[in-house]
């Protein structure tokens, strides 16, 4: 558990007073008037509408301030720390692309050795998590380090210019899985990382989405309270790589959940303990048609496009079946502004 006295001290030093939001004044921008800890400051160099930047800000608000971060190479690292500037208000280190879980393991070992209980966070993109950093992550989970690992999943290597990763959805185009006469985008499936994480039987693993900030933050808070390895994958649209308007980030993320392609689930010790039910399931085409990376799938009269759309629909249906996502009933704790997706499942009543 985190040291409450130390938390209060750090909040006092770096955070905003934990009072109700106050009205912005000439001296206080709306942002400053918010009663939140700002571990990731504004003013960094992310693209407009970057889902990853939003996700990281939300994670830091709920996790900070008594934390330290190990960040893998990728967009989040690059856009937040062009020397001599840094957008981080917590101790933060970037080493390499594939070792954030191992660097974090060392930081956590140091905290243990020194009898401190600052919580260690490890951040990586999907490339740094599903692919090149996967071994280090598995080692970290197996050794049971007290670390919250957050994967910001924008479904491709964005920092190097939108190349496919093992998290890129089937049939999506990237610069290394383009559509052409012979190809309909990525030929392989999105890796089911959460199941692999679950096989480590860690205390807590979950998926979240920037479209559901309160749900995301609840998951972060829950993970922060656990002494042991926890894992969160956050679906984070990338307007540049997914080719959608910057203003549509939240809508795109929400539709991914609503069609079943990105299920929001929680697992404890490897077993599913909670899901976010979808009250009104949408067809995957509602999601696909918003994004340029799937443009080749929405061409009329192309039988291959139809086939791939059916394929993606089948994948979404599979998720809906496996996790029992098609739900109904009242929202136990609704997410602001969202009317079509509710939260429930066996642990819905659990303290937030």
């Amino acid at each position, binding site marked *: 558990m985190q040291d409450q006295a130390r938390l209060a001290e750090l909040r006092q030093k770096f955070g905003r007073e934990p009072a109700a939001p106050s009205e912005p004044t000439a001296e206080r921008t709306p942002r400053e008037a918010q009663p939140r800890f700002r571990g990731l400051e504004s003013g960094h160099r992310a693209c407009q509408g970057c889902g990853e930047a939003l996700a990281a800000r939300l994670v830091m608000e709920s996790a900070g301030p008594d934390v330290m971060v190990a960040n893998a190479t990728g967009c989040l690292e690059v856009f937040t720390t062009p020397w001599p500037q840094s957008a981080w208000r917590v101790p933060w280190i970037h*080493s390499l692309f594939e*070792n954030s879980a191992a660097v974090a393991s060392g*930081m956590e*070992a140091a905290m243990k050795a020194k009898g401190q209980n600052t919580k260690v966070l490890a951040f990586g993109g999907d490339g740094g998590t599903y692919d090149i950093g996967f*071994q*280090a992550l598995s080692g970290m989970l197996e050794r049971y380090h007290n670390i919250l690992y957050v994967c910001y999943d924008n479904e491709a290597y964005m920092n190097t210019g939108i190349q496919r990763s093992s998290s890129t959805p089937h049939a999506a185009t990237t610069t290394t899985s383009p559509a052409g006469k012979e190809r309909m985008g990525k030929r392989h499936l999105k890796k089911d990382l959460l199941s692999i994480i679950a096989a480590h039987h860690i205390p807590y693993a979950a998926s979240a989405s920037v479209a559901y900030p309160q749900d995301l933050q609840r998951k972060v808070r829950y993970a922060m309270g656990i002494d042991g390895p926890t894992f969160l994958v956050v679906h984070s649209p990338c307007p540049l790589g997914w080719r959608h308007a910057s203003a549509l980030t939240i809508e795109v993320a929400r539709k991914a959940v609503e069609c079943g392609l990105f299920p929001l689930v929680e697992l404890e010790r490897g077993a599913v303990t909670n899901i976010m039910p979808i009250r009104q399931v949408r067809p995957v085409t509602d999601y696909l048609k918003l994004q340029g990376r799937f443009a080749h799938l929405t061409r009329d009269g192309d039988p291959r496009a139809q086939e791939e759309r059916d394929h993606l629909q089948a994948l979404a249906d599979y998720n809906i079946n496996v996790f029992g996502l098609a739900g109904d009933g009242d929202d136990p704790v609704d997410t602001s502004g969202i009317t079509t997706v509710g939260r429930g499942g066996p642990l819905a009543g659990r303290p937030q």
Partner: protein
Amino acid sequence: MREALEGSQAIARAVSLCKPDVVAAYPITPQTHIVENISKLVAEGDLHTEFVSVESEFSAASVVLGAAAAGARAYTATASQGVLLMAEVLFNIAGMRIPLVMTVANRAVSAPLSIWNDHGDSMAVRDSGWIQLHAADNQEAVDTTIQAFRITQETELPVMVCMDGFILTHTLEVIDLPEQSVIDDFLPAFEFNRRLDPADPKSLGTLVDPGYFAEVRHSHHAAMQKALSVIKDTDSAWETATGRACGGLLTVEGDPGAAVGIVAMGSTVGTLRAGMAHTPEAGPAKLIKLRAFRPFPTQALIEATQGLDHLIVIDRAISPGLGGILGTEIAAILADVPNAPKIHNHALGLGGRDIPETIYADLIEAIKDPDAPLIFDADMAKLAPEDR
């Protein structure tokens, strides 16, 4: 206290005396006994450290990086393939100026697969920006390991202590391990000013554009040069504390009036010393034992070679297509020195090829042979004619 200890066991005990907060390592021959002995010390409660048994050398290096960045005294050890697997992290540790210590139980690099000694592994990361110190015997390896913890703290440069695999790591010798109180006086508590600390948050390892990169490299190079005096002073302080020194940057022994000099690193020095004593008919030589390979003690080497007609430089690794590594570097250093000795560069003992005492006489004899091969002890008879 004097005890008969295997080299690896002695290193484990020396590390333990330095009270590291975090140790992370992955087993590889001939380093394995070091990790095993440390694990045993931890299991018996003789060493209180967070021992992180990682899933690869890549993670071992990453763990000690993270631990030291978070303010912990950290240690790791590896060899050969492990050094190469770590390579990316090693450059990163040095570039970030993270203080920590690593033992390299020097071993050849595959292919062909060989578990035996040469310096191909540590040479492969020669330009990583680490301090590299070579131990000539196990007492030196122990003393240098302890000194390394002080040097790394003072310079904010990571230190690699290189010891010949098997020849040193697996040899039982009488070792003098200092009392804990001696170490406690010699080695200040670990402090790292840039450590990750929520009360004073810093960002480490940020992106640097072309406007700053050259300056970072400049200051790293400058720090390495300043480290020359730190290495020397630390050895002097050690001598004051224990009555024993390791030879600072380099030492010169043998006949001070000799016209021939021999430069070597690691256990080869002992072999040459014995050869010199047992085959006096081969003629006298000045034996230059190089302890600091990085930073390179350029000035000290120039002074040590003054007055020599011939300088035999022994490498235990080669850069294929060029020649010996140490030999090439020393040739470059002496290029502008007036009356510099003629350099005869040979590689010996690659992949564990035994170096006999008779090598001393053979090397001196080979000065007369302009066609003496680079890999001095390669047996041409074993090669197809077109490969000779």
